[in-house]
Each structure stands twice: as C-alpha cells, then as structure tokens.
C-alpha cells in the first residue's frame, strides 16, 4: 500500500472511492459507513483523510488557519502540482488575501442588492411557470432547473447574449476538476479550452453591462479595493459557481417535492414555506457534495493525529444527514429548522452567493406552488455525474394546474 508514512494509528482505513460512478449512483450507504467508521477516516484509494460527521466537518470548515484553502479545495495540492487554471482569488485563498476579495463579493451580493433584484427574479419565475403550464409535460431539469437560472443570472451578471451556452459546460469542468484524476476530471479538462476562452473574455470590464454584478466588481477597482488584474478573476468566480450550483439546487427542490407529494401539499397550504422548502432541499440533496482542505501543520482532530500537508476531504452531504446532529435526517421536511446545515459550507468561505441561491429558489417555488396543484414524475429520472456536484440530467414530469 502506498499510504504516506504520516498516517495516524487508530484512524480506520476504508477502501471506498467517493468519486466512482457506483458511489454517485447511491452514496448514502457509503456515507453511513464513513460516518460510523470514526470521526476521522483515511481513504486509501486517494491517500486522503476524510470527515463525514457533522461535528468534524463543521470544525474543519471553521479552522481555516489549520485547514487551508490556498493549496486547493480539490484533491490536487497546489504546492506540489500546477493548478489546471489560475487559482480563484477567493475560494482558493486564505486570510488576509481572502478577507479583501471576500469583502468585495459580499458587497456585490449583499442583502441590499437582493432587494433590488427580487422583483425581476420573481417576474421571471412567473413567466417560466406560464410556459410550463402551457406545456404540461416537460423535463424539469432542462425546462425548469436550467431554464430559470439561465433566464436571470447571466443578465444579472451583465453578460452578452452570445456564447452563454458555454456557461454550464464551464461550470461542469470546474466542479469535475476538484476531483481526483479520474476519467471525469481528465475528460472535462481535455475539452475545456473553448469554455475557458469564452469565460476569460466575458470577465473583462468592457464585456460586462453597466449595473450588473460583473460591472459592480470592476467598479471596486476604482474604489481601490482590488486591482484591475484581480477584478476579472473575481467575475470568473461568479461564472464558475453561480449558475450550475443553483441549477442543481432548484433541481434538487423539484425532485424532492415531486417525490414527496405530502410536502408539496404542505407547501401549497402555506406558501411562506417556499424559502425553507428550498433550503431543506439543499440540506437533503447537498448539490455541492464535497470540498477538500490541506493541513498547514500537524493537528489533532477528535483524537486523530494528522500531519502537515495532508489533504482532508469534507463530506458536506454526509454531515447534512448525520443522525448525531439531525432528527430523522433522511426525511425531507419543509418545516425543519435548517439553520446550521453545511450545504453552503460554514465559516469564512461559506457561500458568498447564498442569498442569490435562496432568492432564486424561493421565488421559483412560490410561483409553482401558487399555480400548480400537483407534480407527477412520468419517467425514470436520469442522474448527471460530476466529481463534486450532485443532480439530475433529466426528470420527466407532468403538472396539473391549480
């Protein structure tokens, strides 16, 4: 076995591959195995530590000085390997550098800004439901989970109309690239050149419409908060993380509400639950399944000694269903108190776009619940495979108008 010499004694070794197709098809039994094996495990397949219980995932997320992001939040260690693209200035950065760029994106995506875009996002959701009510039978992934964010987010960013078909494929590359060098990652990177070229160009100031999130980032250059070379890379973060994530988040919510009709009826009876129905879907399905950290020093975590420079894989999805933290973790319950779930992470890197995601989810589910009596799954849902994202490729449904 090739495990490094620093593997702690007492840490259980598991032979599971959490990036294999068989795992993606049904990750839940393996999640349970990972949680029950111990607070910290070692995965021989990729020579990494793993944490799958809520307490340890939360602890690692909230100790960025020990568990850093600047050596990459995928398997690849930026200290040993050249990153496949220039690193992100926010996701793959540590304080103090992170603090500065984070402040910029927090301002651009603040609650105040959400109030300004709310009406527009809500109107687009109503328009989408108009179309779907005409169609009656459709693919809830392509025609809803993708079509809705695509109808608002690129415009909110200020992107040109041409070339938007690159957005979802680009995000798919980004999220596959966090994984190990398996077929998913290698193939994604191999076909990434045209998507990268598109994205690099759209991040430039002259290609972003005034008033959009992208232009607001560039305006921070004039304030002296960031440099002109940093701004395009911060726009890139929104292009990478702002679309496919919400596609899978909204897709997760629909898949839940279609599978659990009693929850759909509860939502229809009290539409103010729409926002929490979305949030609970993010907990239940965890569209972003995993992220890595790298240790900056030797550290003891729940009794396990981990050496310096080790990769630690955080199973956000497993933490979100840890029975130590959640009652009836495997039930989708739209009235659950969801506060504290780690579907958006936790600590200094917690999703900076969480307010955008919640707004999209809330207005979409509100529009649907007001006008649709029932959602029926009419064909076998097909899964989409990605090293980091969990979601469907297609979900055939028929809706009955209210």
């Amino acid at each position, binding site marked *: 076995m090739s495990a490094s010499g620093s593997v702690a004694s007492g840490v259980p070794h598991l032979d599971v591959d959490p990036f294999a197709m068989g795992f993606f098809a049904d990750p839940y039994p393996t999640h349970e195995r990972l949680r029950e094996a111990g607070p910290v495990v070692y995965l021989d397949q990729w020579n990494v530590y793993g944490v799958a219980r809520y307490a340890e995932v939360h602890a690692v997320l909230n100790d960025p000085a020990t568990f850093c992001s600047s050596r990459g939040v995928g398997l690849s260690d930026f200290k040993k390997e050249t990153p496949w693209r220039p690193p992100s200035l926010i996701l793959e950065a540590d304080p103090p550098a992170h603090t500065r760029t984070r*402040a910029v994106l*927090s*301002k651009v995506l*603040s*609650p*105040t*800004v*959400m*109030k300004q875009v709310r009406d527009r996002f809500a109107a687009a959701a109503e328009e989408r439901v108009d179309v779907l009510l005409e169609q009656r039978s459709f693919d809830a992934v392509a025609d809803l989970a993708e079509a809705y964010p695509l109808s608002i987010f690129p415009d909110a960013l200020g992107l040109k109309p041409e070339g938007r078909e690159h957005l979802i494929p680009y995000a798919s590359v980004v999220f596959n690239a966090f994984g190990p060098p398996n077929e998913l990652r290698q193939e994604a990177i191999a076909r990434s050149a045209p998507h990268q070229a598109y994205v690099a160009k759209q991040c430039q100031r002259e290609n972003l419409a005034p008033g959009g999130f992208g232009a607001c980032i560039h305006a921070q250059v004039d304030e002296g908060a960031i440099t002109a070379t940093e701004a395009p890379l911060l726009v890139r973060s929104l292009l990478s993380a702002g679309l496919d994530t919400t596609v899978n988040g909204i897709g997760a919510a629909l898949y839940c509400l279609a599978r659990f009709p009693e929850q759909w009826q509860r939502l229809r009876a009290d539409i103010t639950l729409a*926002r929490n129905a979305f*949030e609970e879907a993010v907990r239940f399905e965890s569209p972003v399944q995993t992220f890595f950290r790298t240790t900056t020093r030797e550290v003891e975590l729940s009794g396990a000694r981990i050496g310096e420079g080790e990769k630690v894989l955080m199973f956000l999805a497993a933490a979100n269903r840890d029975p130590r933290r959640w009652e009836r973790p495997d039930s989708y319950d739209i009235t659950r*108190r*969801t*506060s*504290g*779930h780690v579907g*958006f992470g*936790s*600590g200094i890197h*917690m999703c*900076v776009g*969480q*307010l955008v995601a*919640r707004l999209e989810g*809330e207005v979409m589910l509100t529009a649907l619940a007001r006008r649709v009596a029932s959602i029926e799954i009419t064909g076998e849902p097909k899964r989409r495979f990605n090293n980091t994202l969990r979601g469907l490729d297609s979900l055939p449904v028929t809706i009955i108008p209210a």
Partner: protein
Amino acid sequence: MPTISFVHPDSNSEHVEVSDGESAMQAATRHGLDGILAECGGNAMCATCHVYVDDAWVARLPAMAEDEDALLEGAAAERLPNSRLSCQIKITPELDGLVLRLPKRQV
C-alpha cells in the same frame, strides 16, 4: 446560566436560558423560537437573525463590526438605531436579563 428574553411583535415574551459561550441567535434556535431564521447559521452573512435591542440595554452591548453594520442595511424589516444581528451578540454573565425585540419579518 444567563436568561434572556425575546419579545414577539404581538408583545408576547419568551425567556430563553443561554448556555456557556452561545450567541443570542444560538440560544433562540436551540429553543425552537419562531422569529429568528438564522439562515447562514451565525456566519454574519444573511441578516435573518435581526433583533431590536431594548433601549435599556443598547449601550451595554459591545460595538458592532463593519460587516454587521453593512448587513443590517439589507435586513428585511426596517433598520432602527437599536438594530443588531443576534448571531453577533455573544451572551456573557453581564448580559443576564437582556431583552431583544423581534422584527415583523426576517426575509
């Protein structure tokens, strides 16, 4: 163990015992209190744990950080001079008896 109260918009009060090191938000959510959403789980990123601090207590709380100040601008209910984010109020023994008023809405 300090006890703090949350006053609902209908003037009903709920008293909540706070464990060592908890924030007002954590105590509220642990007790299942309605009126505090705390969507970001206490990371000062969502403004859905907004409270109005009772006048008698305002000056006794530590000053707020810049990020809290900025977030409060976007709170769903009106921002008042005594507005705070309850996840940023760490409860110490000196704050025993603290009174926090809940806004009409958090989103």
